[in-house]
């Protein structure tokens, strides 16, 4: 069964090669850094982009976090639909009822989130 992963392995190898190539070229051609302090952007989270105009260590709206958490929860829900998508046909009506119950709870949760304007951006 593991042979079916050969394309994945190939892709991992290609990705590793590409990433390694880019890093190597950067090291060869880019400006040499002696100290990390020389490059202010090195201390930003993503180590790239233009330098910050102001210290961004300030509060952000809690809605950002809310969106991120809801994303994870609904993503989990979507993943739990995979099993039914694969075996739904063979399970027939009972499988259909099962997934309807499953979706019902998440629908209620979604309505709750929607009506509470958790998905709005004001």
């Amino acid at each position, binding site marked *: *069964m*593991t042979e079916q*992963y050969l394309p*994945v*392995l190939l892709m991992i190898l290609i990705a590793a090669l590409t990433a390694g190539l880019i890093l190597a070229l950067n090291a060869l051609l880019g400006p040499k850094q002696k100290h990390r302090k020389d490059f202010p952007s090195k*201390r*930003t*989270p*993503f*180590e790239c982009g233009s330098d910050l105009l102001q210290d*961004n*260590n300030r509060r*952000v709206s*809690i*809605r*950002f*976090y*809310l969106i*991120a*958490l*809801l*994303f*994870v*929860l609904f*993503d*989990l*829900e979507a*993943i*739990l639909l*995979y*099993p*039914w998508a*694969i*075996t739904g046909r*063979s*399970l027939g009506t009972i*499988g259909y009822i*099962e997934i309807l*119950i*499953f*979706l019902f*709870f*998440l629908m*209620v*949760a*979604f309505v*709750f*989130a929607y009506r*509470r*304007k*958790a998905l709005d951006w004001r």
Partner: protein
Amino acid sequence: MDFNVLMFYVFGVTAIAGGLVLFFAKHPIRSAMGLLASMLALAGMYAILQAHAIAVFQVIIYAGAIMVLIIYFIMLLDIQSEEYLRKYNKLLWAGGIFLVAILTLFIYKLYNILSASPDTFTTISRSIDPATAPEEFGGIKPFSKGLLTNYLFAFEFVSTLLFAAIVAVISIVQLDWKGRKNE
């Protein structure tokens, strides 16, 4: 050496290396990348152990959703001051001692067991050998079938659990409140 076994070790070493990067990197995003490497390597190990469904879920949930969450929060929080982090570095030795103690116990115990009966792990690992695994074992189809028949209650219970989590998240954010009180 069998190719599967070789890859298993490669992924194992990658997972440990990722874990070490996660632990020792000063930069939060590098830690996150270490974690990502560790998670992907684990997915590879699951795939070799014939747990295909788990491997897929590992990639989608952990390397997908959870990593997005973590990187997103790093972006929002953006802790730059090293003094802040140094405070926690002092606690490193406590965790280190605990880790060494646990590792010593495990290695000592494993050494004892292996010296008593050297074929312990051969018998255990025979069950994960692809050749002896039953047809379709761990594949996404039997997994799905099991989830929707034998483990039906767990499946439905997870939906209420997610429901609870969504309500909890929304209620703790309390979007209805305006204004701020000084406390």
